[in-house]
């Protein structure tokens, strides 16, 4: 069951002019959050903005006494993300969660490849930790605009994750899309080695990853970013057209049935303009 807490900001680490990591004292949520789940956040009271916004749980925070909270990897794009960028420790943020259907973590001997674009990195810290706990060999394919926007690489390395990087400007890793190193790796991998992919990032990127993986006979779990009004199944705003079995596509609520979906079931053309 999700809970709603008035979480105090523990710290706000600004990573770049657009990205920050906001640590929130929400242990009751953190302790239950599974990789890929999200929270619905509202930084201020009052009507402006009115609605909460969905954010992946980035890290589960711990000290010697146990779980102390969670963090969000936030990218400034509009009114709420701007506020979250600017918050100082001590401020309060309403935080409802954990919500949604998590990733299904691979199990050995299956390998796990995570493919992140930009802020799509957010759900993978938790997933990487879960994979490590299960002893799954994992790789993060991570694309960003430039080297300065490739964040927290060390944290992933510490979790034993191999890294394959790409930047739009070529300042680090492959010059171009994250699908470049991914495609190379897919081609190289022995088709007999069991592998599962996870993707989170811009819709076209998740679509490309799903198709690429599919061409190599691999399945991808994607974490979609639909606009969400409630996060609890109440409003039907967050739907995604999903085709299951041979049936016609159906709009399913990504706050309940997602945000993680089998990429192969997503009818990509039917997603919103985003």
């Amino acid at each position, binding site marked *: 069951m*999700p809970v709603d807490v008035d979480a105090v900001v523990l710290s706000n680490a600004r990573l770049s002019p657009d990205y920050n990591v906001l640590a929130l004292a929400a242990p009751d949520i953190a302790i239950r959050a599974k990789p890929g789940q999200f929270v619905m956040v509202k930084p201020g009271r009052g009507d402006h903005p009115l609605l909460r916004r969905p954010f992946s749980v980035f890290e589960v925070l711990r000290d010697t006494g146990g779980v102390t909270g969670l963090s969000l990897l936030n990218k400034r794009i509009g009114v709420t993300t701007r506020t979250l960028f600017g918050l100082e420790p001590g401020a309060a943020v309403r935080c409802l969660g954990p919500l949604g259907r998590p990733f299904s973590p691979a199990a050995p001997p299956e390998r796990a490849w995570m493919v992140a674009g930009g802020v799509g990195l957010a759900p993978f810290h938790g997933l990487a930790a879960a994979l490590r706990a299960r002893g799954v060999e994992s790789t993060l394919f991570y694309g960003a605009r430039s080297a300065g926007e490739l964040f927290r690489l060390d944290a992933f390395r510490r979790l034993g994750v191999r890294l394959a990087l790409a930047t739009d400007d070529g300042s680090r890793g492959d010059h171009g899309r994250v699908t470049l190193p991914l495609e190379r790796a897919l081609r190289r991998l022995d088709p007999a080695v069991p592998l599962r992919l996870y993707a989170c990032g811009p819709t076209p990127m998740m679509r490309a990853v799903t198709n690429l993986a599919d061409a190599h006979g691999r399945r991808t779990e994607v974490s979609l970013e639909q606009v969400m*009004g409630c996060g609890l199944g109440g409003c039907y705003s967050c739907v995604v057209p999903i085709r299951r079995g041979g049936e016609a596509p159906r709009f399913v609520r990504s706050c309940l049935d997602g945000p993680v979906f089998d990429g192969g079931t997503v009818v990509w053309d039917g997603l*919103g303009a985003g």
Partner: protein
Amino acid sequence: MSVDLSVNIGGGLTLANPFIAASGCFGYGVEYAGVVDLGALGAVAVKGLFLDEREGHPPERIVETPSGMLNAIGLQGIGVRRFVAEKLPRLRECGAVVIVNICGSSIEEYAEVARILDGAEGVAAIELNISCPNIEKGGMMFGSSLRGTHDVVAAVRRVTRLPLIPKLTPNVTDVASFAVAARDAGADAVSLVNTFLAMAIDVETRRPRLSNVVGGLSGPAIRPIAVRMVHECRQAVSLPLIGMGGIMNAEDALEFIIAGATAVQVGTANFVDPFIWKKLLAGLTGYLRRHGLAGLTDVIGSLELPARNAPCA
């Protein structure tokens, strides 16, 4: 001092308190069973149902606006039969008082949906959605003509004895005349308002923000208009009114109740705070205590109008 929050919303239906989850803002109720004690609500108005399943509109389906939001869900739904089979039993288990919001593309469809519900166990009342701005056929088509309103209400009235609550659209010149038409056709109460037809444009792409171009405006932005409409209807009919539009807390609810609403629905606010219900109850109880009132009925329609005086006293 104990206070009595119960209200009679017509057709013999008494609610333990005036707070109803608004249709379309609370799924089929069951989605909230883990978060909210459904039995503690006055009632739950479930998402609008047609006879058959509907897919609704493609995304984007909502967009936020100043102190409000637009939605163009397009009444995605599982159809009344699946609702009765799959959701109603669970709602009964939870002790929910269930108001079923129904839609139709024709008068026959409305009547057919109502007939099915009339035979189902655990339906407390039918809310007749003749005011949805988000579908091409039906909905507001009926609700924005007095004739259409009368005919749909009368047709449904013939097939069910369940309390019948037409839900009025605010997108009309004179909402009170629609309350009168609904009453004359046999309604037990009316609820108002549904959303205001509205739109938002992305100026960078010069495209509508909603896939359906237009949608319905809800939330605090519309509250002053909705309160005025309840006030107008109160003066035109003596039916119980169920008021809504932008209620975010007990004080907002009281505006509607003082204006003449017997009960209120809460939609958009529930998205912001799914735990709002306890706060609403506490706020209302506190108000009654503070004002030394024994029951909510003392507040309903208690608006004191000024003696009209010369402009410059």
